[in-house]
């Protein structure tokens, strides 16, 4: 499942153009890599997701470094962050905040919940009830929350990095498609390769690796990056290719349903950011192909699918069967 991602890692290096943007990304990736060894490509993709202004869903088995990645990212980007551990008895109010009667002033005062942060780490999101999940997801979509009739804006930028265990583990509430769609990307980290594993084992086990991650980007830089990436050029030849990809998902019988317009928009946005991260002002097919698995895997489902994990195979078909030229 990860072989493709590892292949693409090599591509990424070869199509790099040295300039301030690619350098910036390079530095950040190196910084986050201190905490998570041998996962440059996944780190790059998560950065791409955040630079695109989208929310990230990390999905893997327990102990693969999901939480570590989230923390490291938050620290490297210098964001104000908070972590919510989702459990089955968590209530919406625990996330959004609650109004408490203040006896001294004789008024209700609002105590904001952990969601009022620039970066929210929603740990094990599929362990909580759908009710609580939807409270979070609504906030993600609208960038605002309504508590007791009053609408409050969330800080800007606002990112959610959610992690979840594969849904077939016990005691989970799988996210429905409509909510999965809200995440720009879904990433899997996978086992570290041999070299990284060895390095990990050789390291000082006492030290907290996340602690060593330094802030290397200013908030302003993140916002700039986001603005700049919107200006990346997508030629008609490239748009043709993207349209063919989308049409393929909609016309072939193996696909339970095709890619939604939100999905195709997400794909374009991520591809543009990726192009900029490589230092280019135009999108090439490789950009689309690199972000494609992360962006669309969780939005696709095969006809014969039961647990929602056949997207990867479908993406492989998309990559190999849709040609870049007509």
């Amino acid at each position: 499942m990860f072989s493709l991602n590892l292949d693409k890692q090599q591509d990424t290096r070869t199509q790099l153009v040295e300039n301030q943007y690619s350098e910036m990304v390079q530095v950040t990736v190196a910084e986050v890599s201190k905490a998570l060894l041998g996962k440059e490509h996944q780190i790059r993709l998560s950065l791409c997701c955040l630079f695109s202004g989208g929310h990230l869903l990390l999905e893997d088995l327990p102990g693969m470094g999901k939480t570590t990645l989230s923390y490291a990212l938050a620290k490297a980007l210098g964001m104000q962050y908070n972590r919510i551990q989702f459990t089955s008895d968590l209530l919406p109010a625990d996330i959004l905040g609650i109004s408490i009667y203040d006896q001294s002033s004789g008024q209700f005062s609002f105590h904001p919940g952990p969601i009022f942060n620039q970066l929210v780490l929603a740990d094990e999101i599929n362990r909580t009830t759908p009710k609580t999940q939807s409270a979070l997801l609504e906030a993600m979509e609208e960038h605002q929350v309504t508590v007791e009739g009053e609408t409050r804006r969330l800080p800007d930028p606002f990112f959610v990095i959610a992690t979840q265990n594969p849904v077939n583990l016990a005691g989970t509430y799988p996210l429905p498609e409509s909510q999965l769609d809200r995440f720009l990307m879904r990433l899997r980290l996978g086992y570290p390769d041999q070299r990284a594993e060895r390095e990990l084992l050789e390291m000082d086990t006492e030290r907290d690796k996340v602690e060593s991650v330094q802030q290397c980007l200013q908030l302003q830089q993140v916002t700039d990056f986001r603005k700049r990436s919107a200006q990346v050029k997508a030629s008609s030849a490239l748009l043709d290719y993207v349209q063919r990809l989308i049409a393929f998902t909609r016309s072939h019988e193996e696909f339970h349903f095709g890619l939604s317009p939100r999905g195709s928009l997400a794909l374009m946005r991520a591809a543009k950011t990726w192009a900029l991260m490589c230092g280019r002002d135009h999108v090439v097919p490789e950009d689309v192909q690199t972000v494609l698995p992360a962006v669309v895997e969780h939005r696709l489902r095969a006809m014969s699918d039961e647990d929602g994990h056949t997207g990867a195979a479908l993406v492989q078909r998309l990559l190999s069967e849709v040609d870049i030229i007509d």
Partner: protein
Amino acid sequence: MDISYQIPRAALIWVLAAVVLVSIPQAARMPLWIAIIGITCVVWRVLIFLGKFDYPGRWLRTAVVICTLIITLTQMRNIGLGLDSAAALLMLGFVFKLIEMRSKRDVYVVVSLCFVMCMVSFLYTQSAVITLYITSCVIAILTSMIALHRSQAETSTRSNFWLACKLGLQALPLTVVLFLVFPRIAPLWSVPFQSNSGETGVSNEMTPGDLALLGRSSELAFRVQFEGGPSPMHAALYWRGLVLEHFDGETWRRTRPGSAYAEAAQRADFNLDWEDRVRTQGGPLNYNIILEPTQQPWLFGLHLAQRQTSSLLQSRNFEIFNNGLVNKRLSYDLQSYTNNQTDLILLDSARRRATQLPEEGNEASRAFAAQLRQSVNSDRDYAFTVLGHFQQNPFFYTLNPPLLGDQRIDDFLFNTRNGFCEHYASTFAFLMRAVGIPARVVVGYHGGEYNRFEDYMMVYQYNAHAWTEVWLEGEGWVRFDPTAAVSPERVEIGVEAALSEDPSFMEESFFGANRFGGVGWMNTLRLRLDALEYEWNRRVVSYDETEQYDLFARLFGQVTDQKILLLLGGLASAVVAVLAFIVIRGTPTKSSDPVNRVYARLSRELDKIGLPRQSGEGPYSYRDRVVAARPELKEPMGTLTELYVELSYRQYDEPADKLRQFKKQLLQLRLRLSPLTR
């Protein structure tokens, strides 16, 4: 089967259009009720599509099948087993299939049947017009097939139609080649034509009324082209068919009925003693006749015709026969000596046959003849006196003669005096024989219409005519046409002029020769159409084994078995080679974008060293893969990839310039690769 499958609207429309188109030629020659059933089924299918009607239930379908079988069986009993009844059965099955056409498979069946119906049309006629029509039908069928396989959103009706036209045009060269070289295999089975409907034209017996029936038909009998020199005068165009010698008081026949020997003798080839019996003056007249199928063996020609086509036979009465029935259009060459005398000495047996009359009957006529003969000196004068009798008394030329009583000759001669040519010929011959002068009736055609566009004559069924030949001492057989005495314009100008007032003339035809004769351009159109048919028949339909052989001989010299085998083998391997090439090469990606086209060329170049671009592979990934496999190509691949990305994805300001650069680079790469590939 997917119950909810709906045949696409465009496909359904085209399928129904194709069905209607291919059915029209069939329906035109079938009983009306079949056409009505056909229309009902088409309308039913449209209503099913609109959701106003449902598919027929199981019981209805079973009932329909049983009814069809019963009807067809009765049809077969009534009109006999043959093409017509089989075509009717096919047609019924075909239209009934429409109303149970639900799934794609059913549409395939209907489409295949459409092609079969096209072929059935060709069994009846292979004229140029019908060929054109069937071609348009085939285009409609192709369009329906295309519409069936393309989704609605993908295409418009018009583009389906153009694609079908394109396919048809692409098939044209192959069609021509197959037409020219495909072996003409004799049919493995023959289709029996219905005996009652198949035979057309004059028959070997003549009862008054027969030819008048032909006078109502404007079907073509044959076409004639004279070689060199002007064609003869209209009055001289007596197309001799059969000589009828035996009269039983009502009907003229070629032979005494039931005489197998006489039948055989008359069909025998008497060409051998031709020279002794014939005296000719002047040069011969050469001409070619293309006879429409008659299902009869006899042919037509001017008197005195000598066959030029070797397969023909000639009887002792100088009739011409084909070896076998004329069941398809037949072209034959004749040479006629119009200035001739035959049988100056009449054999006794021939004289007996030419003076035979029933023992009794028509006594008044016999008495009239004897009395008239007494009043003149010679047989010749007698004949002219009889003609004068027809001329001077109120005899009329009409297609609608009144019914005659038992004593037919008497009745006609003294009472009704209204008749068509056969009445006059029959009566005249009777009057001759009554006084012992040898005489016989000849049936055939007279006249014809000249087509100036291709310089040939058209002879129609309404040109059917009967006249007499009388043997006179010292002159041999002399042609007498008693009709000319009654209606001179019949002979001088033509039957059209003589009968232009007669309402029943050609009443069975719509586009008859003279219905629109008065309208100038209509007539021109008709003549042009016929000229087209004539050329079509001469050049295409008549292309048979012999002509094929001639063509081979002209192209490859002497035709030997080896050469034919070599040619066929060569053709077959050429086809296989082309197919193999297409299959091995795969579908070439022909892109409309010039940039993509040259980029595809790069992939083809690198394919030679085993590094084609794979489907879905981006330019950078491709470059990296090629460079990894062939590090020496790093520099040109890098440049080409950069150029391609700039052209295609960066959209440089001067694409033409960059494209030129790309092509130059590509050429250099090719030059670099050429030692590698060799």
